[in-house]
């Protein structure tokens, strides 16, 4: 599975109200997580089980070594995120006094920062761990947002409780506009023997050139056809 396929798999899994095959889900998650930030180098999943810590999925040996250092010392962002259910950011591992053992291993592997996200709503305390080769690489809002989405997908897939945020209410006015746009698209498909995507692109180009909304473009397309029909009918 490449990164995009992993994301598609995770999004699909999160939308289901059933537990996804754990191995495939965890593999997709570390696959996606290892490419999340510009300088990401590794991703792993930590679980706290009765007999101790465990890494059920990892993207590389480096991820395993980084996790193991934290398990040995019983201290580290991955352990804390799983245990306390909160995010742990370590923008500069080498200068963080809390995680000496992790800093030694990270220094050897050229890993400079990490982010551990709790996976909420699952029976076994779980965290998703991201590691980067650049300081503070995992701090910006784009990376954080994507990491939170990844942790939510994992949570939904592992628990079998479909992500509740997939439900959103439509408005009658929006549905009316949608119907009009779809009608205009259908007209263009028919007129130009083209695909839905190309018809939409044609309308976008019109919107850009005239600085009008798609609803206005749709009205124009529908009105033109109606006008033509009226004219043909009156002849």
């Amino acid at each position, binding site marked *: 599975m490449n990164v*995009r396929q992993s994301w598609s798999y995770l999004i699909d899994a999160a939308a289901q109200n059933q537990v996804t095959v754990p191995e495939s889900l965890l593999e997709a998650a570390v696959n996606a997580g290892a490419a999340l930030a510009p300088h990401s180098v590794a991703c792993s999943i930590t679980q706290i089980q009765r007999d101790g810590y465990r890494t059920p999925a990892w993207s590389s040996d480096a991820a395993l070594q980084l996790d193991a250092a934290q398990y040995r010392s019983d201290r580290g962002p991955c352990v804390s995120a799983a245990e306390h259910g909160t995010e742990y950011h370590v923008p500069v591992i080498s200068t963080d006094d809390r995680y000496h053992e992790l800093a030694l291993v990270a220094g050897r592997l050229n890993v400079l920062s990490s982010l551990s996200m709790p996976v909420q709503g699952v029976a076994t305390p779980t965290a998703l761990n991201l590691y980067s080769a650049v300081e503070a690489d995992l701090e910006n809002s784009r990376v954080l*947002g994507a990491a939170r989405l990844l942790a939510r997908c994992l949570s939904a897939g592992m628990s079998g409780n479909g992500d509740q*945020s997939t439900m959103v209410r439509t408005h009658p006015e929006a549905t009316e506009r949608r119907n009009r746009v779809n009608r205009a698209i259908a007209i263009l498909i028919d007129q130009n023997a083209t695909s839905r995507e190309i018809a939409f692109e044609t309308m976008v180009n019109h919107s850009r050139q005239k600085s009008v909304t798609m609803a206005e473009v749709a009205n124009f397309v529908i009105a033109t056809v109606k006008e033509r029909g009226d004219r043909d009918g009156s002849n």
Partner: protein
Amino acid sequence: MDRTNDDKIDLFEGFDRLGISLEDLWLDAYALGGDLSLLETEAYVFGLLRDAHEHNVLAQALNERFMDQDLDHLVRYMTLAPS
């Protein structure tokens, strides 16, 4: 002056700059005929899924918000793959 596609911003920057909610963006895209779920919309915003047509529906939804602020189409569209 017209912006070239390279000058434009991506979905995340557009979404971030407008400060709208994900639900608002989803509803705008729905009104344009978009077929994504809310979760998929979020993944597109972060650049994690990339079907060109669905991307362009979201780009248009954001651009119409910018048009309301008298700003031209700021968000970059993707070129459709040849069929």
